[in-house]
C-alpha cells in the first residue's frame, strides 16, 4: 500500500539564513500515528505546512494521499494548525457548523462536539471558553469532515492534564478507526503514548526515526539512579556522575538500589532522596537534541 504522506529530501528556507528544513525525508503509512518532536524552530510546523500544501518547499517532493498536497481531495484532510484562533464570537456549535458548511459532506456537528467532550447546547462564545475547551473546539473543527488524514500541530498545548488525557483518548480512538495522524508535540509523554513512530527533528533535519521503544533503546541510555548528595562520585565501586540533579549512577538495576543505599551509608555519605527511573523518550530527545545543538546531527 502506498504511503499516505511522503516527504523526500525536502528543503525550505526563510530568507538567506533561516533554514527550516534541510533535506527531510519521511513517509507515513495509512492508519499510522506519526509524531514529529523537536525543539522550537526545529522545522516541525514548516514540514506540516509543506505536507498540507500551505507552503511550497524550495526543493524536494511532498505527497499527500499520493498527490501534490494542493491537488489532494480536501474532503479527506483535516488540520489543526499551530496557534490557531478561530472567530471568537461564535459558540462552539456555531463554530463547528461553520466549518461543516465548507465541506460538501460533513458529520453532524453536535455529534463531533459530543465526541470531543463539549456540550453542543452550551452557548458560550469561543473567546470565553477555557484554554482546554478552546482546543477541543478546534479539534472538533478539524474532525467535522471525517478526515482520512489528520494533521495536529501541537494539539494539546495549553490544555490541562485531564483535558489532555481526554484528547489523547480521542486521538487513540481515531487511530484505532484507521485515521492517519501526523502529530507535532513537545510533550514526550504524548508522543510515547500515541505514536506508532516518532521522528526527532533538530536543526531542520531528521535526527532519528523509529518506534518510541526503538528510540529509547537506541538513544536514551541506561536506567538512572539519582542520589541527592554532595559526596564524591566514586563511592564503593559504583561509577557515579556529578550532574545538576545530584549524583547519577547509570545502569543500576532496581534490585541494586538497596545495595547502593547501603554502600552510601557504609561510606558515611550524607544523602537525601534516592530516585530511580527507566530511560524514556524524553531522554532520547534530550540526547539527540543536545547532539543537534552541538552540531553533531547526522541523519539516522
Amino acid at each position, binding site marked *: 500500500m502506498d504511503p499516505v504522506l511522503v516527504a523526500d529530501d525536502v528543503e525550505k528556507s526563510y530568507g538567506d539564513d533561516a533554514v527550516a528544513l534541510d533535506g527531510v525525508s519521511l513517509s507515513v503509512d495509512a492508519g499510522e500515528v506519526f509524531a514529529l518532536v523537536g525543539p522550537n524552530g526545529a522545522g516541525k510546523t514548516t514540514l506540516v505546512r509543506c505536507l498540507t500544501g*500551505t507552503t511550497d518547499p524550495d526543493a524536494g517532493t511532498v505527497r499527500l494521499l499520493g498527490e501534490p498536497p494542493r491537488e489532494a481531495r*480536501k474532503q479527506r484532510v483535516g488540520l489543526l*494548525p499551530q496557534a490557531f484562533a478561530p*472567530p471568537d464570537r*461564535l459558540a462552539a456549535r456555531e463554530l463547528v457548523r*461553520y466549518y461543516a458548511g465548507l465541506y460538501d459532506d460533513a458529520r453532524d456537528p453536535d455529534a463531533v462536539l459530543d465526541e470531543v467532550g463539549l456540550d453542543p447546547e452550551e452557548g458560550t462564545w469561543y473567546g470565553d471558553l477555557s484554554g482546554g475547551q478552546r482546543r477541543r473546539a478546534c479539534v472538533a473543527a478539524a474532525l467535522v469532515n471525517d478526515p482520512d488524514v489528520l494533521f495536529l500541530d501541537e494539539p494539546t498545548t495549553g490544555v490541562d492534564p485531564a483535558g489532555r488525557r481526554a484528547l489523547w483518548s480521542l486521538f487513540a480512538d481515531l487511530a484505532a478507526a484507521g485515521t492517519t495522524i501526523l502529530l507535532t508535540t513537545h510533550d514526550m509523554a504524548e508522543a510515547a503514548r500515541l505514536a506508532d513512530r516518532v521522528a526527532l527533528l533538530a536543526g531542520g533535519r531528521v535526527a532519528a526515526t523509529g518506534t518510541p521503544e526503538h528510540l529509547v533503546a537506541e538513544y536514551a541510555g541506561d536506567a538512572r539512579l539519582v542520589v541527592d548528595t554532595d559526596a564524591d562520585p566514586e563511592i564503593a565501586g559504583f561509577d557515579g556522575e556529578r550532574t545538576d540533579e545530584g549524583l547519577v549512577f547509570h545502569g543500576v538495576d532496581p534490585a541494586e538500589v538497596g545495595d547502593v543505599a547501603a554502600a552510601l551509608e557504609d561510606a558515611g555519605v550524607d544523602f537525601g532522596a534516592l530516585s530511580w527511573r527507566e530511560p524514556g523518550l524524553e531522554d532520547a530527545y534530550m540526547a539527540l537534541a543536545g547532539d543537534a545543538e552541538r552540531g553533531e546531527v547526522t541523519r539516522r
Partner: protein
Amino acid sequence: MSGSLARVRAEATGAMRTFLRRRTAVFFTFFFPVVLIVIFAGLVRTQGAGGGAGLFSEPTGYYLPAYLATVVLFTPLSRVGSEVARHREDNRFEKLATTPLTRAEWLAAHALVNVVLIVAASVLLVVALLLTGANFELSPWLAFFVPISSVLFCGVGAMLGSLAEGQDGAIAASNGIALPLLFLSETFVQPALFPEWFRPLLDFSPLVYFSRGVRAATFPEATDTAGSAGVVATNAGVTLVLAVVAFAVGAALIPWTE
C-alpha cells in the same frame, strides 16, 4: 445548493454573526454616517447661497455621493483589511486552505456581508438626509452603485490587508488611503476648487466614478453634460470594471498560503 454557494453562505453567516456580536463595531458602522449628516447637513447647513466657490456651497443634494462614500469607502476598506490581517495572524487562512473554500469564495462572502451592512447604513443615511430637507432623486441607480462600489473597496481592502503587516498596519493603511480618497473624488470638494493641473489626477481615484455616477443619477442639475443618463451609464460601467479587477486582484493576494 451548489457547493460553492453553500461555502459562501457558511463563510458569510459566520462573518455576519461575528460582526453583529461586536457591538462597538456595529454601533460605529451606523453612527459614523449619521454623525456626518448631523454635522454637515444639520449643523453646517450645506444649503449654499449659490454661485459661491467655497466648501459646502452647493445644495445638500449635491453631497449625497459624499455622504454615501463615507460608508461605501471606509467600511469595506477597514473591515476587510483588518479581517484579512486577523485571519493571517490567527492562522485561519492556513486552516481554510485545507478546506474546499477558495480565496474568491472567501472574499465573495465577506463582500456580501459588507454589502448588506453598507446598504443598511446607506438607507439610514438617505432617510436621515431626507429628514433634513435635502432635495435629490431616489434613483434606482443607487441600487447599482452602492453594492458594486462596496465590492470594489472590499477588493482594495483585501489588497491592503494582504500587504500590510498585521491588523494595526491594515487599519492605518486603510485610513491613510480612505481619507485622501474621500476628499479627492468630487465628493465634498467640487473639482473647481482644485488647481487646474490637478483636476485630471482626480480620474485616478476609483471613488470618483461612484461620485460622478451617483450625482448624475440623483442630482442631475449638477451634471454639465446634456444627458445625465449617459454620464450615469459610463460611470456605472467604469465602476463595474474596477470592481471586477479589484475583486480579482484582492482575492489573488489573500495570503491563503505562505
